[in-house]
């Protein structure tokens, strides 16, 4: 999962959909909360997330809620799932 910082406009729909995974940084861009307290735009695998228990469907819903399609999800083989 990656956040494209050029596309992200800080609408924060992902923060509402998955608050344990996303938050806005000081530049008003979405970042991914990783294990150990690191936060960045990714790429981040599901196993690197601070919230390990989050269902895949919630992550997909968060990506789909983005008004600029700035959250990109790929599978283990690198195939793009969304958008």
């Amino acid at each position, binding site marked *: 999962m990656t956040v494209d910082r050029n596309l992200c*406009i800080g609408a*924060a729909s992902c923060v509402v959909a998955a608050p344990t995974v996303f938050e806005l940084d000081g530049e008003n861009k979405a970042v991914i909360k990783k294990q150990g307290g690191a936060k960045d735009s990714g790429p981040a695998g599901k196993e690197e997330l601070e919230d390990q228990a989050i269902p895949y469907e919630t992550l997909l819903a968060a990506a789909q809620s983005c008004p600029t399609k700035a959250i990109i999800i790929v599978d283990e083989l690198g195939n793009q799932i969304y958008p």
Partner: protein
Amino acid sequence: MNEANYLIVGGGVAGTTAAETIRTNDKTGSITVISDEPYRFYSRILLSKPNFFLEKIPFDQVWLKDESWYTQNGINLLAGRQAVSINPQSKIVALDDGSKWHYGKLLLAIGTCARKWGVPGADKKGVLPLRTLDDAKEIISRVKTTKQAILIGSGFISFEMAEMLRLAGVDVTLVILESYYWEPLLDETSGRMIEKVLLANGVKILHKSEVAQIEGGEAVEGVVLKDGTKLPCQLIIAGIGVSCVLDWVKSGGVETNRGVLTDEYLQTSAPDVWAVGDAAEFNDIVIGERVQLGNWVNSQNQGRIAAMNMVGQKQAFKLVSFYTTQGFGITIGFVGNVRVTPDREVVARGSAEEGKYGRLILHNGKLVGATLINLAGELGLIAKLIEKGADLSARKKEIAGLETNLQTLI
């Protein structure tokens, strides 16, 4: 007579999210979406972003659903049609082409319209609001030949358009009625912080000013202000706010105020009629009052909850929504209910000198909203504090200082 189990008036984020949620939960019910714009669902929020205007974001990024999405999901989109009347007793909505739709459940996701600007000459070419994709398309094409532009009003639209126009090399004059930017929604300290970056980036600001007349032939060539000042321009963007067109809803007997009134389930006074998004004035159970909000996250989540209720569940809408923007290197954020009424108290956090300044708005000691300049990172925490109904009356001194981590208050 046409039939729809679910009739949705409005094809924006609220209406489309509702259609999608209904389809997930009811595989067979017929769904029709009526949109008064001649387009499928697009990203209205992207329309005012400089990167979109300057084509750094490809234009096609604006489409959030493919045409095939509607057919694949059995969602009938009637684009370019307007609903003109509603009869909740016979459950019929009439459209502007004379057709009639009988519905099982009805959702009003009708949004708002750009407020009409009554100044003489406002009908000239090059005088535009920014509300629809067609407005954006016209601004994009006009910017290319514009040397001087005038922005009217102090809000999100003018702020974002100012950055776009400056990046495009256009001379920008901002004409505002107020004595500082975004008065009275923001306080003077916040307003001046925004003005500081506007001025530093070459935007001229005329306070307490109003356009008396727009000059030109078919297209705008300039304005005359009420004090007689003349300014040449080839483009005027009027960010003067929005209003709801509710007459047709009201005359059907659905209760309205500034918006369409709903309870916490987003149900209106009429049976089997729900309302969501910018046009809904809903019972907000987080802060215990009726509010009307105009932001993407609110519309999206209301669309989802109303849809769940339309398919037979009973879910209350509970969300602290927010909206943010950034430009010229600063961020501006609004969380929860930011209107400061006489029964509210404002606690300042940070200061203009520190470059970070927030206003935490308390009602009976409880946090209900906040405005944030350069504090976007605290938005999520503040939303959480509002949702929890955190009583901050004993901690006002602490929260004034940026060194206090808001996490410790949760």
